[in-house]
């Protein structure tokens, strides 16, 4: 039994002065190199099982949406005569006859709709539209919002006051109403532009509906991003490295681009990722009420909307787009949450 040492005693402990053994030395060796912000965040993100699973799901859906239609034998607008209203994995009489002759007929995995179009390939194209809208709209929002917010925050004073007042006003405008209104009224001038001016004929290849959505979303959704970026810049611009950059004669543009925006990258990434599901949400809503992307291009929203009319006879037609849209939104939400925890713990409420 060791005698308890008086805490006030100045007597030295001999064991403290013994040479260190190998085990102790090992524990003092710096095992890990200093990690960068990115590596640290990525490491935390990789540990998050839910977020990683969601990432895998999203990659699988992307493959399904962008690569799937290339290998699928039917196309999304192809109306197969005689194969209307087939149940999943069902063959029409003609196709059965073909099969009897020994020809290979690819099955309609999810059946066909009332016009004889294959549901599976329409689901792929619909997911493609959703993903495109989500990602492109969010990138546009990121570009506009971050530049606007950075300028307002960096210059401050009157510039900031006027710029943020504009943001306040757009922020209070009920977005969904204006989006619907713009969607309805923008379509015609855009079509006109695409058909009369040859330089704008590319609009037709992407589709007027999609372009409309991009324009309208980027017109209204950037304000949230601008606010977040501005508050970050306000904090960052007081720091020494900005003063140093100024002293070295860097231009305003360079300071904003190289020093300020790169330093709030974490916030930018997280906000952009969380913007994706909300854009997809709105797009599916617009397509559902019939003003999103134009037929024959399918969208998950319009597929669900068409399924309602036949809900009692063909309930399975509703389930495919419904599950797909929920899965996409859920996965992006979870990835966004994971990124936020990994890169920007401050944002967590």
């Amino acid at each position, binding site marked *: 039994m060791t005698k308890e040492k008086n805490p006030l005693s100045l007597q030295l402990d001999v064991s403290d002065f013994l040479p260190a053994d190998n085990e102790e030395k090992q524990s003092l060796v710096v095992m890990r190199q200093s990690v960068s912000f990115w590596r640290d965040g990525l490491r935390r993100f990789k540990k998050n099982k839910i977020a990683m699973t969601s990432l895998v799901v999203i990659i699988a859906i992307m493959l399904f949406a962008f690569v799937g239609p290339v290998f699928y034998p039917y196309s999304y607008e192809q109306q197969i005569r005689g194969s209307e209203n087939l149940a999943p994995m069902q063959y029409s009489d003609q196709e059965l006859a073909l099969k009897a002759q020994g020809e290979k007929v690819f099955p309609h995995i999810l059946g066909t709709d009332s016009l004889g179009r294959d549901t599976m390939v329409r689901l792929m194209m619909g997911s493609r539209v959703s993903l495109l809208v989500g990602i492109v709209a969010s990138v546009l929002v990121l570009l506009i919002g971050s530049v606007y917010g950075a300028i307002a925050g960096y210059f401050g004073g009157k510039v900031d006051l006027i710029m943020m007042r504009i943001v306040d006003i757009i922020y209070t405008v009920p977005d969904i*109403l204006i989006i619907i209104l713009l969607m*309805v009224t923008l379509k015609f001038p855009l079509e006109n532009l695409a058909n009369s001016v040859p330089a704008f004929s590319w609009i037709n290849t992407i589709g007027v509906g999609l372009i409309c959505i991009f324009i309208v979303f980027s017109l209204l959704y950037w304000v949230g991003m601008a606010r977040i970026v501005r508050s970050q810049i306000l904090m960052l611009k007081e720091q020494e490295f900005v003063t140093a950059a100024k002293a070295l004669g860097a231009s305003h543009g360079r300071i904003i681009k190289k020093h300020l925006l790169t330093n709030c990258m974490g916030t930018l990434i997280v906000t952009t990722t969380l913007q994706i599901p909300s854009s997809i949400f709105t797009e599916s809503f617009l397509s559902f009420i019939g003003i999103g992307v134009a037929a024959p291009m399918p969208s998950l929203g319009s597929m669900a909307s068409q399924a309602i009319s036949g809900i009692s006879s063909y309930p399975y037609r509703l389930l495919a787009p419904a599950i797909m849209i929920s899965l996409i939104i859920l996965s992006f939400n979870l990835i966004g949450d994971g990124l936020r925890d990994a890169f920007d713990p401050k944002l967590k409420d």
Partner: protein
Amino acid sequence: MGKYIVKRILLAIVTLWLVATITFILMNMVPGGPFLAEKAPSEATLKALNEKYGLDKPLIVQYKNYLTRLLGGDMGPSLKQRGRTVNQIISTGFKVSAKVGGISVLVAVIVGVTLGSIAAMNRGKWIDNVIIVITTCGIAVPSFVVSTVLMLIFSVKLKLLPTYGLSSPLHYIMPVLALSFYPTSYITRLMRSSMLEVLGQDYMRTARAKGLSQFKMLFKHALRNAILPVVTYLGPLLAYTLTGSFVVEKIFTIPGLGNDFISSITNRDYMLIMGTTIFLAALLITMNLVVDIAYKLIDPRIKLK
């Protein structure tokens, strides 16, 4: 305080003016006059009609007339529903929508606050996990998916609930469920995190130490403080209920304002589109203003700028 309120009211007025101006510009951007709708009228009739509604005047005069009429509360005639004014359509539709929307908001707040508190008090237990999983899914599922799946289960398969109209209390069940699913999930998550924060505060320990009953501790101390973030969410909640109602009213064929709005879009009834947009915008902006001011009044910790 007064300064803040004045600032917010001014901002609201500017926003409303902006919405009205945007709608006016868009209305005039749309190809074809309002009277070219069905069969083309003769030139003389057209001229008379244009004169009657003041459409022969230059745009800037029309804009002035439009704003003055709007200030007087007149939103003009409907182009497709002959003989009805936009005001009449809005007032009948709004009564229906307000009922469904109001019940949904109530359900969302009551259920959300209860579930959120239960989850927070049972942190880490199975019931907390169940609630988290359900609400995580809840905020990812669009309202049209909820409505159609409900319809599929309760009307098509089980044949328990009616699919359209609002003639009995039974008719309200599905639309209200569909409309409140997302906000309930959101409020539950909001309530859970704010409740967890409150439960960790010192004054809760003091309350327990002085031997307050569980009931008193929960209702007098915890709930009162934890519910504040939910109050701020009321503004966005209203906006959500509105957009949700567009879809839900369409699916369950409820003759509400959302349905009017959607059908006015598909019918290209421009006067009605503009009227409903301005009405709904005014409603939303006012409600947001009221909620924000109420929030500042409720929470004494918030400093007014």
